């Protein structure tokens, strides 16, 4: 049994919304009671459609937003009770939009050097510059690019710069939120390979958030499927693709158009849209779009149960083997 590196327990984040001044009229239930363990040196892919709460989950784990309830245990301590500086060096994040995450008026070298100086990893400008050149080299850019500004780079190069900046802290965990989604296919492949090479070279653990199941399949060892803020299924990548159990996972896999002329199996078409996360359905969150919905799905909220070793699913079709 692998050791848990990071434990997420019943993490919940609700955002209050108000129509009129001073009066709360409801909550957006972005993340609901999410629990999972992240193992050392693995890549856990988090997949969901827009509105499923995957980005909020990533940000809460990074302690960028405070949760409504729940804990994230890292090195035996709940990170929400610890000062920020203790976790920031070990956990870094790469964001989706490489255009928005770099300051346009700052030389990219200085942008990479800033966190190094702030965390006293280097002493003085000269050492910082050497370290930045190393980092630029690590992500496949020329050290001479230190003095260039973000607008001089292409999207793929900017994403490399964001990665270099995150790597400067020598983090153990990297949270990648749609880190390759804004890029063209040929460039996306370069960045995905870079992530894989860095992982092997620096013993990183990834939390890889994406809406693209094919990308997540390529990069992840385990996959967590989210829908309306809840974990629907969690399993090893191979297990998930060979035996997808949750109807939502099955629909998601079948919805992806494959670039091959071989005859494909029948597509499962889901009806309607993802419901609003303000007024959540009472029973199963997926019940309104499910093609296998049963009458009891409407009022019974299924628990997340382990139906096979390390394969968790939240669905009434699969009663817990332990009889629960």
């Amino acid at each position, binding site marked *: 049994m692998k050791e848990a590196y990071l434990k997420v327990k019943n993490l919940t984040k609700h955002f209050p919304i108000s129509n009129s001044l001073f009066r709360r009229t409801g909550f957006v239930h972005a993340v609901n009671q999410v629990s999972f363990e992240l193992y050392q040196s693995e890549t856990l892919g988090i997949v969901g459609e827009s509105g499923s709460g995957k980005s909020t989950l990533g940000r809460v784990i990074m302690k960028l937003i405070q949760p409504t309830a729940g804990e994230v245990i890292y090195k035996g301590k709940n990170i929400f009770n610890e000062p920020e500086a203790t976790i920031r060096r070990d956990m870094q994040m790469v964001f989706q939009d490489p255009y928005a995450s770099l300051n346009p008026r700052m030389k990219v070298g200085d942008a990479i050097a800033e966190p190094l100086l702030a965390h006293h990893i280097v002493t003085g400008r000269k050492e910082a510059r050497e370290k930045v050149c190393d980092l630029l080299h690590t992500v496949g850019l020329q050290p001479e690019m230190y003095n260039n500004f973000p607008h001089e780079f292409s999207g793929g190069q900017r994403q490399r710069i964001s990665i270099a900046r995150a790597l400067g802290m020598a983090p153990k965990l990297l949270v990648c939120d749609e880190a390759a989604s804004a890029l063209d*296919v040929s460039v996306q492949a370069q960045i995905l390979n870079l992530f*894989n090479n860095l992982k092997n070279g620096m013993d990183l653990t990834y939390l890889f958030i994406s809406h693209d199941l094919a990308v997540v399949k390529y990069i992840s060892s385990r996959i967590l499927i989210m829908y309306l803020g809840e974990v629907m299924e969690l399993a090893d990548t191979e297990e998930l693709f060979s035996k997808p159990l949750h109807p939502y996972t099955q629909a998601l896999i079948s919805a992806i158009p*494959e670039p091959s002329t071989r005859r494909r199996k029948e*597509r499962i078409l*889901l009806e309607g849209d993802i419901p609003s996360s303000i007024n959540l359905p009472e029973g199963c969150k997926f019940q309104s779009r499910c093609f296998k919905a049963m009458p009891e799905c409407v009022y019974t909220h299924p628990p997340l149960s382990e139906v096979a070793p390390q394969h968790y699913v939240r669905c009434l079709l699969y009663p817990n083997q332990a009889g629960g």
Partner: protein
Amino acid sequence: MPGLLEFNNYSMGFLNDEGQVINMMDNVSFAVQEGRAVGIVGESGCGKSMTTLSIMRLLPNNAVVQGGVINFQGTNLLALSQESMEEIRGKDIAMIFQEPMTSLNPVLSIGFQIGETLQRHQPALSKAEIKEKVIEQLRMVGIPNPEKRYSQFPHQFSGGMRQRVMIAMATICHPKILIADEPTTALDVTIQAQVLDLMSKLKVNGSLMLITHNLGIVVEICDDVVVMYAGRVVESGSMVEIFDHPTHPYTRGLFAAIPTLTHNQDELYTIPGSVPVSTKFLPGCRFAPRCTQAMEHCYTQVPPERELSPSHLVNCWLEFEQRGEG
């Protein structure tokens, strides 16, 4: 056989601040046959969107047409007057854009916006007839409760529903050719599946030109494929030919760079570098700097067009095996 819509050696470029024209699309030729769906494939900066804007004559102000013709039913669209072009837009050639939120007017009702097209092209229709037709159209694209939805505004629709509205608007005059520019890129996969399903059902009624970077979508919908790179057509042919025998180094790289669900890939193939900007285009093959098989003359001489089979053309200096009827 002449196509419904034909590009013949069409070239265009942009005027820069010094008054020089920087070439973007160079000698682009392909045809959309009647009743067939053509997929235009390439990454950003390959000239896909300039292709559609050229057809609709909606190019930005600093764009310059450098030569060639775009024939639609035998008439050169580039030579038409502004008035006759307006007759064609929306009636014979209709378009669906990528971002449904920005292409709908937020302060006008959905029903009015769809009806406007009918009003423009069929002025004889009465208001009641238009409303009836619009509701019928909304029902056809799968919008539940069309009578109620008719008077609602774009913000009351979800992304997938907005794209259905766009499709309803584009198809209400039964255009001979429908141009869809990345119609599902802004949508979630399950919603994308719904929209693709709808588009393949509507396809039977006319020609379709689908602009996309997603090769999976091309398989679902298209009969023919045109692969573009840096403003030039690098490979074209029937969908089956291109997908079963991708030939141009760029096409092959594109296929190998995509993570798929069916194959287990240890490492993705990557095309080094990225698409050049138009000021840095080479005189020879524009893909040469990224090509692993580039030879010396690739950099200086425009590659020839070769026929690999009756339904497969490739523009490359490399020697390829000829194949018989695909």
